């Protein structure tokens, strides 16, 4: 008998760490949003965040994940390629470099704005490509404190919003907005995000579980500006308040416009990804 090793469930949409939320552009006047209801104001902020992240075409980056559990530390390294798709979600490929026993494993994902995502996993030991279900959103990614859905690209349509208040984080003026996932498979009741008013970058997110208790906090820092337009965090730190574990993600060597196209995101290219 042959049962495939299911990294399937331990690998997911890692790429979207590539496409975190906002970027610079012309600054929207917060005066314009002042007269709106909290819901409308929240939505306006979310739309502006997404609008500022259009036009990157394709990108790649190296990602390192460090899992802290008590005194133990464990590392995962991967490379992430992404392609912006007009009028739909983006395409991405994640190639694993460590731990050594998953080296060469690769994951291909087509996100869709209005349908279930398409996902494939390549298992080098069997040279087999496996189609996998994209419903598993709340499970841990590679044993880390990140769930798959934390790594998904941000799509405005996936949440309902509410502006809560304005607040300062590390000296930066922020909107505090609450997002409620529309997806019944989400593991969260809500997320509360701190978004800086100047560049619409997410600085912090509190995740509340289905029972509405605070589960995790993500802090995004060391933002760098790419192509004069796209802000990307270098460091992301997720702390789980229930088990006291922490996972850090470092994204390095960002490249944009590297000439990737549709043919780099196929089952065949997945098989030869190294």
């Amino acid at each position: 008998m042959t049962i495939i090793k299911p990294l399937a469930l331990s690998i997911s949409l890692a790429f979207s760490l590539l496409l975190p939320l906002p970027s610079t552009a012309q600054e929207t006047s917060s005066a314009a949003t002042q007269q709106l209801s909290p819901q409308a104001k929240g939505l306006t902020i979310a739309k502006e965040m997404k609008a500022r992240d259009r036009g990157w075409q394709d990108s790649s980056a190296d990602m390192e994940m460090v899992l802290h559990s008590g005194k133990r530390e464990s590392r995962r390294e991967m490379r992430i390629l992404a392609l912006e798709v007009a009028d739909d979600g983006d395409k991405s490929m994640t190639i694993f470099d460590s731990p050594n026993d998953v080296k060469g494993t690769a994951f291909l994902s087509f996100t869709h704005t209005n349908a279930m995502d398409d996902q494939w996993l390549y298992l080098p030991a069997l040279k087999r490509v496996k189609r996998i279900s994209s419903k598993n959103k709340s499970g841990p990614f590679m044993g880390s404190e990140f769930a798959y859905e934390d790594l998904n690209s941000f799509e405005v349509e996936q949440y309902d919003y509410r502006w809560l208040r304005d607040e300062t984080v590390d000296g930066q003026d922020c909107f505090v907005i609450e997002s409620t996932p529309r997806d019944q498979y989400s593991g969260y009741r809500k997320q509360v995000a701190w978004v800086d008013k100047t560049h619409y970058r997410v600085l912090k997110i509190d995740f509340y579980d289905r029972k509405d208790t605070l589960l995790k906090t993500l802090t995004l820092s060391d933002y760098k500006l790419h192509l004069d337009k796209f802000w990307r965090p270098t460091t992301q730190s997720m702390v789980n308040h229930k088990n006291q574990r922490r996972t850090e993600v470092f994204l390095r060597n960002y490249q944009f416009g590297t000439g990737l196209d549709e043919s780099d995101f196929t089952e065949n290219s997945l098989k030869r990804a190294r």
Partner: protein
Amino acid sequence: MKYCLTTLQGLSLATITLLPLCAHSELLGYIGIQGRTYPMSAAEQAQGSETLSAVIAPEWFRQWNDGDDSFNIKAFYRYDSLDEERSHGDLREFYWQHVGADWELSVGINTVFWGVTESQQLVDIINQTDFVESADGEDKLGQPMIHFASIKGWGVIDVFILPQFRPRQFAGEAGRLRSTPATVNNQEFYQSSKKENHIDYALRWSHYLGDWNLGLSWFQGTSREPLYQAISHNGGIALAAYYPLIEQSGIDAQYISGNWLWKLEAIHRRGIGHSPAEDLSASTAGFEYTFTGINRRFWDLGLLLEYSWDSRSTAQAGIFQNDLFTGGRLSLNDIASSEILFGLSQDLDDAQSRSAVIEASTRIGDTVRLVGELYHFHSTRSDDPLYMIRRDSYLELGLEFYF
């Protein structure tokens, strides 16, 4: 072991190494040791009950031309303390590949997988099974080939020319999991007068459309699955493999819907010329359903159910002529990527014919995996193919060091 030469370094090194600029090469693989015990006394006296073995499987590749060209090597060697026939080496891969805008060409030894089901792989025919390596048939021998793939919007067409046949290798006298009497190696018989030099051909079209994956395949040449004939050997009786010429058409399909994965594989095989092989139809169909986050630790449980049918009589059909496979996969989603696979194959015509497996593995530190495997075989009828290995249930424990 990863490096990418920058232009300056490349210029200074190029004269010495003749490496293309920005070439990328890497060495990886694993070394493993396994201990295996067969709790039941063997069917034949010559067969042992314990074995220790060691395996090394290094892999090396080099990419150049911005990754459009690559050379790939994957070697394999196992030493087995019990069975000299199981001490064996193989070149799983040794090929050059060029990738064009919508095509790929590979020349050399390679391994190719086709199909979607888990309990058996009917459609998968390019490579010979590495029969002595494991009981699950997952391991394959490297196959010399010229492989051209055309990747279009309407699907992928694969064309294979397979110039050299790889005969199956069988466990030796002292080994377990073998026929009784033993099947001898290096005494194969062929229908083709060209023997192992008969050139085989294969074609495949495969496509992905939304929630559907579909593949149609065709193969003509030497059957990977042998027939057996009795020969006299060292003053006694032994079996020898006979490889007929066949033509095989196959279909594989998969439909994904939420947590459901529906799977189908079917083949029709017919003999060519005066082939003694029975014409046959066979299929495997079933599903996989995944329960996610079944407890507070976010374990996942995937359940599998597959039914297999084969038009041949029991003796020729192997173990899947009218069988139901039920199984599951438990993923702990922990830092060690621990998982447990289990399954039971039950013959629906014979309540006393079944096999079961449990496989578990977990990571120790960053580079070692601990793997345990338990196989159970049960059969009481001597015309059942499982009967020969009815006393060969085993427990194996192993460590694999990845580099």
